[in-house]
């Protein structure tokens, strides 16, 4: 039962992630991203962590994507014009080669590993939080937060021509 659900939602996550990139309509892209995030949440729940699953939906699908949609609607972005990709053929060729390499590598990794969870994961939410805030992980945890903050500031600087 769990395996069936996993494959259904994994396929849904990948398919909607492809739609996010392939779709020219920005609103459709955003909506496909919501589907991806929700499928990931289901996978988290299947992995035995309903808390992370709920947080995933609340934070990403519920808060961040609503803001995205809000901005898209305010700007009234309808459809991105079809224009030839910048850089021409050489760049596209290199990109295709890189993607092929990535797919091949992912395939090798999948073939070699025996696809089982590393260890039986059976910690409660409280234990997980305690581990995360323990001295062992605290530095990495806080560093990630600062990284995300830096990315946000960077996005504001890039988006605003005059500050």
């Amino acid at each position, binding site marked *: 039962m769990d395996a069936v659900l996993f494959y259904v939602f994994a396929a849904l996550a990948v398919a909607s992630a492809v739609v996010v990139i392939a779709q020219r309509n920005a*609103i459709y892209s955003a909506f496909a991203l919501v589907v991806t995030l929700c499928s990931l949440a289901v996978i988290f729940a299947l992995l035995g962590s*309903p808390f992370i699953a709920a947080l995933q939906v609340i934070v990403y699908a519920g808060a961040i994507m609503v803001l995205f949609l809000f901005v898209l609607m305010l700007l009234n972005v309808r459809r991105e014009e079809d224009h030839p990709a910048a850089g021409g053929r050489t760049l596209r060729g290199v990109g295709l080669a890189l993607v092929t390499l990535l797919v091949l590598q992912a395939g090798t990794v999948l073939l070699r590993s025996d696809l089982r969870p590393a260890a039986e994961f059976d910690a409660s939410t409280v234990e997980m939080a305690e581990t995360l805030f323990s001295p062992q992980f605290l530095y990495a945890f806080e560093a990630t937060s600062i990284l995300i903050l830096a990315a946000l500031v960077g996005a504001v600087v890039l988006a605003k021509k005059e500050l």
Partner: protein
Amino acid sequence: MTPFTQDLLIAVVKIAVVIGTLLGAFSLMTWIERRTLAFMQYRLGPNRTGPFGLFQPIADGIKLFFKEEVMPAAADKWTFLAAPVVAVATALLATAVIPYGPPFSLPGWSWLPEWLQGRDVQILIADLEVGLLFIFAVTALGVYGLVLAGWAANSKYSLLGGLRSSAQMFSYELALGLSWVTLIMAAQSFRINDIVAGQAGWFWNWNVVLHFPAFLVYFLAASAEVARIPFDLPEGESEIVAGFHTEYSSMRFALIQMGEYINLITVAVLATNLFLGGWNSGIPGIPETLLGFPLGFLWWGAKVAFVLFVFIWLRGTLPRFRYDQLMQFGWKVLIPAAAVWVMIFAGWVALAGRGG
């Protein structure tokens, strides 16, 4: 029959019961609301169809069913069609983790299959460990139905309504979430059943007494979440026609209405379960069952009905907020108030030991 098939069968029956009851309650609510509002405004309200106008919802349903469905020529077809479905689906999804009434034992009637006789059940589809968080997540997704409806119609009024509803729900969700934090702290659980169990005994054990500030914040934020007067700016008819559902007609309009009313019922049920003691009578010594019927359903139903009545009452009494007032109230009053209460309660729990 294997235990798995038994559980599956029970779950299917529960889903049918919950959804059927909610849809029935939705149509009944439209009539109750119109009648109550009418009496508050010295009118009579719908009283022609059937006794006291009770068949009005059925007549409305038939009318909406046979009306022509109009779609604006410039609308985004698939999104326009999908938006009401999203609205109803998220509204129904949230109802899956809420307990409706107390756990009870099925009677041992001989015509029942043996595995059903005396079995302990509760009208609750999924008893999730993270019940409250799940509701929070699903209501966060509920915004999409309204926003997409507003965007897809490609009309100015719809778009304005969609923008308003996304901004409003986004702002008030924070206060709504904060109002639950102290309850979770006191019960040490996200499970709604645990929170109800923590309110047993005398009625001053109900969360509405100890957590009164949280209750106020919850009630105000929740009525903003379901966009009821005085927070009904997303569909303020004097400004933007009907907001995000301006362009919807026929059954799709009915679907959006259904989503809104189911959300309203969810909010009332949650207020009962989280703050008003759920199915606890509030007076120890009252027997739990009468002739085999669990009395908890009575107290619970009365509380839900009362909360729903208060919502109608508010609608009949208050004028609508101005938009800047709405934002100011949400961000500068409700959220700080909820945060301060969380800090006070957290400090108290830390100083006085665990548990409320």
